[in-house]
């Protein structure tokens, strides 16, 4: 009996963890290329969720089919934000590799986006409708598997795989990787670093949109929905190694498992403390994270 619950918690932990990984994926990608921590990441997730919500509400599409609208919309949003707000800072602080001012700008974006959502959509908690995935569960005796989470986990792995393939195999992907390793050298090789930054930000934001579409079938949408995901994403990307795609998924799964299995032994408020403890431990022992590049810290 206890084993059943343990298995149940493990399964949920892995599924939820992969979804956390997907949520953090955009953040890690943006950091990998721009070397910027996007403090507005949670707000990007929030925007992704609202875009998904409206895409589904207005068209009546299945949330996963709505990705066809969500992904391009979010890509353009990220591209535009980078071009408008972050690029000028890079230009102004050319000799600094990680301009700290970007942190202020992204936090400013966070305030603006969250409260714009409050102003425009109000504080209501919105549930997706139509929601074909709502409450769908697979049943194996005593063990339940949530279908929307299963879809989400699969989407996480698929997105990470696609991203990995894109970065390894395509011309654009190689240019992005070259820029992330050494932006000056990449510039010398004729790569337009601003365009790369815009595209990387666009992709990172589009991934946040995918995360939004994955979350809405089992999560409500409201203006501050991004905040809990924000800090969690930071923890995940540092655990996995800033800039590492697979690291984000593994970091996500670790957090998911700690959150799921921890409460068997303690209250879930203490597991939260464990998560932060684990985070600090990794920082002290292996600051580059599990899959991080040493040159990044």
């Amino acid at each position: 009996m206890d084993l059943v619950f343990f298995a149940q918690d493990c399964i949920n932990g892995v599924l939820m963890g992969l979804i956390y990984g997907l949520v953090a994926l955009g953040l890690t990608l943006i950091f990998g290329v721009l070397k910027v921590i996007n403090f507005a990441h949670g707000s990007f997730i929030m925007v992704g969720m609202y875009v998904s919500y409206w895409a589904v509400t207005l068209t009546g599409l299945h949330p996963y089919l709505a990705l066809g609208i969500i992904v391009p919309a979010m890509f353009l949003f990220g591209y535009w934000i980078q071009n408008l707000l972050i690029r000028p800072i890079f230009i102004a602080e050319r000799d600094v590799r990680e301009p700290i001012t970007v942190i202020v700008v992204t936090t400013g974006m966070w305030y603006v986006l969250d409260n714009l959502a409050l102003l425009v959509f109000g504080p209501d908690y919105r549930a997706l409708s139509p929601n074909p995935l709502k409450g769908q569960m697979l049943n194996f005796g005593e063990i339940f598997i949530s279908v929307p989470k299963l879809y989400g986990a699969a989407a996480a792995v698929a997105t990470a795989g696609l991203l990995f393939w894109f970065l390894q195999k395509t011309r654009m992907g190689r240019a992005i990787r070259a820029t992330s390793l050494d932006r000056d050298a990449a510039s010398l090789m004729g790569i337009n670093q601003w365009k790369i930054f815009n595209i990387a930000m666009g992709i990172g934001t589009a991934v946040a949109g995918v995360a939004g579409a994955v979350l809405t079938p089992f999560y409500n949408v409201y203006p501050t929905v991004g905040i809990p995901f924000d800090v969690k994403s930071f923890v995940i990307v540092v655990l996995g190694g800033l800039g590492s795609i697979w690291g984000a998924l593994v970091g996500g799964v670790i957090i998911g498992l700690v959150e799921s299995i921890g409460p068997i032994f303690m209250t879930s408020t203490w597991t939260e403390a464990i998560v932060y403890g684990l985070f600090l431990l990794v920082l002290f022992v292996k600051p580059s994270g599990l899959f991080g590049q040493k040159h990044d810290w």
Partner: protein
Amino acid sequence: MKRIQLLALSLAMSLMLTSLAFAGPTVKIGNILPLSGPSASVGQQGKQAREMAIEEINAAGGIKSLGGAKIEMLYADSKSDPNVGVTAAERFINTEKVNVITGAWNSGVTYPSTAVAERYGVPYIVPVSVRDTITERGFKNVFRIAAKDSWWARDQFTFLKDMEKETGEKLSTVAFVYENGDWGTGFVTQWKKLVENSGYKVVLDEPYPSTATDLTPVVNKIRRARPDVLMLVSNAADAILLTNTLADYKVSPKVIIGSGGGHADPTFISGCGENARYVFDIVEWETDVNKAGAKEVNEAYKKRYGSNLTGEAVDAYLAMYVLADALERAGSLDPAAIRKALSKTDYTSGRGMIATYDSVQFDATGQNKNAAMSVVQINDIGKGLERITVWPKPARRAGYTPVFPMPKK
């Protein structure tokens, strides 16, 4: 630096001028509410109810004993932050020279901001903020409309006992699951005191972070503990998440009972849909309350703002009428006079008196001693999911039999 000083000065001046601009016979009420941040939803409800009440009062001729003085409302956003709440209270009292303050929903904000009002001797009406100690500090200027923690908890247990008697269903185990904020942990302290003499066994005592992104582990603990009664204290987002997850995992204790807050949020039902069915919730007010005028007020509110009144909104609405009544009797804007009038309040009739009980009266601590609770059940009896009053029995909606225990899923 000089320029900045100048800028600050001119800002300060313009502020003073604006406050001078409103002369004439007005009563100023400062309202501190969480209008942005995680509690924005409930803050907005409180604001809307206040607005409607004050417009009605002003339209009906204002405060007659003060020569038909109109009431002017000022709002301040606390962001649920005590420091911001204190600054707002300071500003209301000293700069805006308000006559009365109301607020602040978050106990964490009410607590220090009432202390400010007490220091300056300005009456402070607390429509809702449930922590017991708010009225237990010997303050002379604080008046609370809503019931306090311990009463909510007491009535939840009484409800369970009454229903056991009524239905013959035997309940033996309870689980406490609550958000780990000041509200949740404050509430659960009361439960723990009460449960000792109730004969119930506590099989789970589980706080969870109110910003939790996944409550499946908590739900699994509930599954494992197999309680007869699941008692919850939740904010809106987590109430919805928890209810949906419970349904997903087919967890069906005999009784699920919430403690207002998130369970009373208008979006709770739309966010959970069928999953919310049969959930009990303790509230101070419900749309089906058998009270003269309640329906009209609710209709007016719904027409204006698109949703039903909530317990929180009713307390705010009532608070405005209680205040107007006290001002009428005080016939003066002297704080001492207002305070005296408030303490002698016996508000029994009038448009504002739509609460379940008969009269608002404050005891020596400033607590509305008549504040009473009712329990509702969410169910669909042909008109979609709605909240149906079931307890106390005399207040029960005619013809409705509570589903107790919940059917197994």
